[in-house]
């Protein structure tokens, strides 16, 4: 399998503070990978560095092309959809406008219309609320909308930053089931950053563990889930 995303020696900085210290990892095409770590380990920073939203050095290659020096919007246009922490919902706009914004870089208007219908199939609650202001949706609904909006790009790679944050356990299960389906059926490569290690490891096929800006462990999701240290630190048993 070829690596779709290849990250080497990634260092990121907030002002003078260095948040990532030479991160290395790769995502295989079609894989569903999770990046685990505690608060402040650098998970969010990793995703932000991929989209050039934080100052960083090192090499990030997406499908063989270097991402360095590209603006955030140009990286997105390559087919990398990023669902940020806090979901990035356009709260003052309607649900349907949010979906249209997800496809704003696409030119095929017929495809956009049919994709919106497809999203309503994936997430029926969005159809019920399609004229409603997105800010009035519940947290779970907004997370559904954020995932749907990201899919409207028809991404090759989707980055999700703690999709389970603030959601009820049942809703998280539902969301993760849908993410698995998207990964299998739509062939979207997914990198999901999570604190909810147990669920993420059930869903993913590969996992990395990050601590203070460094990858300290990597392997198949199974191996990681059965690792003694991980179980103690992240799974709590």
């Amino acid at each position, binding site marked *: 399998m070829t690596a779709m995303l290849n990250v080497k020696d990634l260092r990121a900085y907030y002002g003078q503070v260095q948040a990532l210290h030479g991160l290395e990892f790769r995502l295989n095409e079609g894989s569903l990978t999770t990046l685990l770590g505690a608060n402040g380990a650098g998970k969010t920073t990793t995703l932000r560095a991929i989209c050039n939203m934080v100052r960083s050095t090192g090499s990030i290659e997406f499908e063989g092309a270097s991402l360095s020096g590209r603006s*955030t*919007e140009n990286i997105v246009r390559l087919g990398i959809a990023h669902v940020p922490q806090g979901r*990035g919902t356009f709260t003052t*706009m309607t649900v349907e406008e949010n979906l249209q*914004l*997800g496809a*704003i870089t696409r030119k095929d208007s017929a495809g956009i219309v049919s994709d919106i219908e497809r999203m309503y199939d994936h997430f029926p609650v969005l159809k019920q609320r399609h004229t409603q202001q997105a800010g009035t949706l519940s947290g779970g609904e907004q997370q559904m909308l954020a995932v749907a909006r990201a899919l409207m*790009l028809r991404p090759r790679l989707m980055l999700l930053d703690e999709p389970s944050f603030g959601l009820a356990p049942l809703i998280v299960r539902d969301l993760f089931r849908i993410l698995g389906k998207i990964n299998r059926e739509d062939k979207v490569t997914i990198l999901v950053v999570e604190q909810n290690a147990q669920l993420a490891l059930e869903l993913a096929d590969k996992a990395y563990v990050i601590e203070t800006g460094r990858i300290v462990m990597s392997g198949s999701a199974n191996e990681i889930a059965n690792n003694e240290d991980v179980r103690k630190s992240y799974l709590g048993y």
Partner: protein
Amino acid sequence: MELFTNQVLAGIATGAIYACMALAVVMIYQAIDHLNFAQGEMAMFSTFIAWQLMQWGVPYWGAFVLTLAFSFVAGIAIERLLFKPLAKAPILTNVAGFIALYAIINSFAGLIWDFTIKQFPTPFGSSPFLGSQLISTHQAGMIGVTLVLLILLFFFFRFTRIGLAMRAAAAMPESARLVGINTSWMIALGWGMAAAIGSIAGMMIAPVVFLEPNMMLGVLIYGFAAAVLGGLTSPLGAVVGGFLVGIFENLVGTYIPGVGNELKLPIALALIIVVLVVKPAGLFGRPIVKRV
């Protein structure tokens, strides 16, 4: 009663101009969170361009369209050259930039066209509108042009993809970049459109106040008053605010003894202060909450 109707209609007519200026101010405010103090001078300069074109023999509507195009490009150029580099600068730096721009445009207009007042033609004539003494055809034309403009803008922002992208970029810049919108160019486009809208206001009001480099000063203050009244975050509020300020200005000038023409401008400023104290978000604006 006829005096009252007359004053209200005249107020709506000048209010249309304030609405345009307020709209231009709000468009830039939404995009970059700053008040453009030079909005009036940009409109004045555009109006001089229209005047110059007509001096050279271009017919009115030809000059009108060329001026719109010139203003649009000039607005984008100002953003690219002056305010894009200042995007991350502190607020006072930006204010200084606006004041500099104000002075530069004002002086250049004076240098090129001098400070004597000039007649600016109206395409609508100034006879009574539909035989009524209440309002002139030019005033009716001002209202008509503004309404057409507002309808076009409404459709642009509501139903076009670029309008949607501009709204997204103004409301949530980071999220907008994450769906692939080039927010920097959306801001520039906002400047271009604001400059073009301002130029319409300038060309419509010039036959009334006469053309000279300081003609927009008062108009811009009324425009600010309108934008603050309606709410700086609401384009609709800006428009409603414009009409309300126009009517208010006329009624106060007519019915409150001693106000007359001299005290009208301070009243606009007093209105700004009252609104800011009583209802800072304006009639239609959303209160701005900053999380820390």
